[in-house]
């Protein structure tokens, strides 16, 4: 029998009457890489918080390193060598790299004065353990997401981590950073550190893990060795049904004027000589690494990035887009990359979020807002985009990622744009919902809308776009026909220098 470091059996947990976990079993074996997979809201986060001692389980048994715990506190979990790296990393952004890694120990030793030489030595050692070099005196807030993650790992190792649990570690990383992270993880695995990964990126799960645990709706679906799984099985077990993607093919009628023509668009140090056409009914993908200019292109078209040269034309008419108001006046909508800060008003109701673009049109007598017309619009869009909520007057933050994205989409669709720019249309959206969003995008294009999809999610690009523009260092370097490529080829092109 394998060496078990953590064993959970029959775990139950409810929050305010909602069952989060039901009879869940989980075994973590020493020195192996485990992946916990499942859609958003399936109970993954709850489960790791129980292992970390943050939540108390309602029922079930918990054995860690052979000790049975009736109630586990976070301190006890840390003593047992369990370290959780959450998505926000729990680092102090205003402190330096060295302080973040080493100050914990300094404090634990109860010294009255900080021994700075010691702090830097400890931090350097810790980073050397994972073969990473970072400026020790730089503030953590200046670091990239990938480096913050490495700092968090170093910090965990300094606290004698035996099991490192990582919540969605790759969601904000570029392809190359993911590779670097994986190599660190493999190195640590060879030294006997155990990993539990929480993820919904299936390719990565299949690549890195040795053991896979699938959860759906708070219940175990399966648990086994990596070799027993493939992409199809994971999708089926996570969603409960098979998902087959159809590609989107569309050949625009090029005798008419293009909906959008971009000619020689340049912005200092960000964009160089960008030219392309987009016809009504097309879904054009724009891909590239972070920093390739893909987001800058979107922002330039939406009027928030000023351009130095070049011409944008809408339906053959040259236009100037200097502000968001200009962009909107020309029928351009923008679904931003960061839904939570740029797309949604989290504390406002779902309904408020849906009608924010059109509230001015929903006026009745004397020019005052007509609540009946407002409610009719809200009901219409909640139904049309199947936004799953018991009540549209609840705050938008109560929704899952996929439903939040539908709210952002509804907000724009309500104002009937001709061109919709979607930056990362399904980031943080679970598989089932992702597929439905893709179908919606195809339907919108079918109705004559033009879509510009900015994404580095390769399966997404191949499933939705009729052509893909590849960007590198602020330039469009290639136009790719999805029918003439495959995932591996496109992935290779994406990371090519």
């Amino acid at each position, binding site marked *: 029998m394998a060496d078990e470091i953590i064993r959970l059996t029959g775990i139950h947990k*409810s*929050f*305010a*009457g*909602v069952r989060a976990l039901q009879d869940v079993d989980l075994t973590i074996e020493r020195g192996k890489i485990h992946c916990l997979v499942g859609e958003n809201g399936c109970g993954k986060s709850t489960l790791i918080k129980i292992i970390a001692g943050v939540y108390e389980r309602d029922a079930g048994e918990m054995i860690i390193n052979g000790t049975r715990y009736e109630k586990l506190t976070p301190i006890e979990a840390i003593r047992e060598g369990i370290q959780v790296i959450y998505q926000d990393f729990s680092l102090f952004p205003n402190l330096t790299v060295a302080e973040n890694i080493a100050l914990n120990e300094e404090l634990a030793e109860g010294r009255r004065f900080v021994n700075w030489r010691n702090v830097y030595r400890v931090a350097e050692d810790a980073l050397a353990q994972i073969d990473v070099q970072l400026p020790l005196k730089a503030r953590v807030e200046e670091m990239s997401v990938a480096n913050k993650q490495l700092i968090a790992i170093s910090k965990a190792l300094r606290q004698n981590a035996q099991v490192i649990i990582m919540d969605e570690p790759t969601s904000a990383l570029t392809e190359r950073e993911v590779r670097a992270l994986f190599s660190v993880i493999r190195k640590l695995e060879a030294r006997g550190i155990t990993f539990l990964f929480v993820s919904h990126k299936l390719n990565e799960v299949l690549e890195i893990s040795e053991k896979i645990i699938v959860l759906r709706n708070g219940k175990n679906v399966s648990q086994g060795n990596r070799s027993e799984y493939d992409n199809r099985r994971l999708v089926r077990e996570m969603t409960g049904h098979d998902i087959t993607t159809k590609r989107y093919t569309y050949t625009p009628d090029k005798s008419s004027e293009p909906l959008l023509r971009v000619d020689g668009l340049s912005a200092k140090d960000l964009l160089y000589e960008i030219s392309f056409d987009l016809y009504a009914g097309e879904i054009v993908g724009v891909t590239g690494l972070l920093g390739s200019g893909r987001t800058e292109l979107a922002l330039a078209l939406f009027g928030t990035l000023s351009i130095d040269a070049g011409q944008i034309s809408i339906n053959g008419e040259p236009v100037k887009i200097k502000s*968001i*108001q200009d962009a*909107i006046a020309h029928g351009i909508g*923008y679904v*931003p990359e960061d839904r939570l*800060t*740029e*797309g*949604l*008003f*989290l*504390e*406002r109701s779902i*309904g*408020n979020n849906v009608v*924010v*673009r059109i*509230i*001015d049109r929903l*006026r009745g007598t004397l*020019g*005052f*807002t007509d609540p009946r017309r407002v*409610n*009719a619009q*809200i*009901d219409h869009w*909640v*139904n049309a985009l199947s936004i799953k909520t*018991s*009540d*549209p*007057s*609840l705050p938008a933050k109560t929704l899952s990622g996929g439903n939040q994205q539908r709210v952002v989409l509804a*907000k724009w669709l309500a*104002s009937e744009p001709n061109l919709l720019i979607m930056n990362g249309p399904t980031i943080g959206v679970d598989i089932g919902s992702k597929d439905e969003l893709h179908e919606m995008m195809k339907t919108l294009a079918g109705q004559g809308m033009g879509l510009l999809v900015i994404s580095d999610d390769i399966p997404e690009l191949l499933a939705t776009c009729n052509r893909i523009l590849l960007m590198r260092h602020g330039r469009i370097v290639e136009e790719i026909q999805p029918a003439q490529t495959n995932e591996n080829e496109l992935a290779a092109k994406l990371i090519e220098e």
Partner: protein
Amino acid sequence: MEETKTKAAQKSLLSRLSGDSYILRLLAITILIFIAFSIVLPGKFFTVRNLQSMAVQFPEFGILAFAIMITMITGGIDLSIVGAANLAAIAAALILTHLGGDGGMSLSLVIPLAMVAALIVGSIAGLINGFLVAKVGITPILATLGTWSLYTGLSYVITGGPAITTTQLAFIGNSSVVGLPIPVIVFALLAVAFSIMLNRTTFGFNVYMLGTNPTAARFSGINIDRVLIRTYWLSGLVASIAGIIFLSRANSAKPDYGASYVLLTVLIAILGGISYTGGVGKVSGLVLAVLSIQFLSTGLNMLMLQLSGSSKAIFFRQFAWGGLLLLVMVINYYSEKWKDKRASEAA
């Protein structure tokens, strides 16, 4: 479709009621304060005379509270309101004394002229704040701290220090319509106007959205500069209305009138459930906060006077305001905690 529509309508009413647990608590506290003083001070507190006397007192700061409220909902604040109110009052007083004196223009002409001048001064003061906040991008608390000093300083320069006395507006401060003092009517009209504006206009909707998340507001196509300028303009305009009330009650305009009102109105706004981070706040909460502060002030004043027989009692007022604010915050904390606990026990 039909079914979901009615469901949405019902739910929104229901959640509107339950979502207002804060305002319900504030209502209970206001009524409690009123009843308690009526019992402790028999024949003194709950009398027509006292009610009327309170009714001329609270509109002074109550009106200013609307200015603080609207700026706080956008996530900002306007510390210059009292400065703007006094500057507006001084402008009105100058017109009244120079043009409306003996042998001057007729009162029916000079009074409207003075009022319009006050409103224009308030508007300009507000627009300056709006420009600084929206276009220059100065943090509201700093921008309006600066303009507060600017407007107050300007008032000193104009008057040279002493008050400008005029009794021509006294009729506003002293007379009543069907038993209601005019300042209360002005306060009530503003409450209705703000309520309609916040709930039933595009501007009001945008104010809440902007206060909740300025970035998302910008990306949703809301012209946030325009909303902010309008907000601070309104704040200045409301301040000048308060300035006219100051002048009509005190029969004089001076640069340092009501200096304590700035922090008092911030306290009232927070007590009224208006979030200092923006996006949250209702007229009903603000009105209840104004009333409870007034009841508390008058009641304690009478009580302390009765107990100590000394006029020092008036200093107890400010202590009580702070106490009330903290009490409401503490009650709030425990009732939310109790609600959470009950919700998890129900599970």
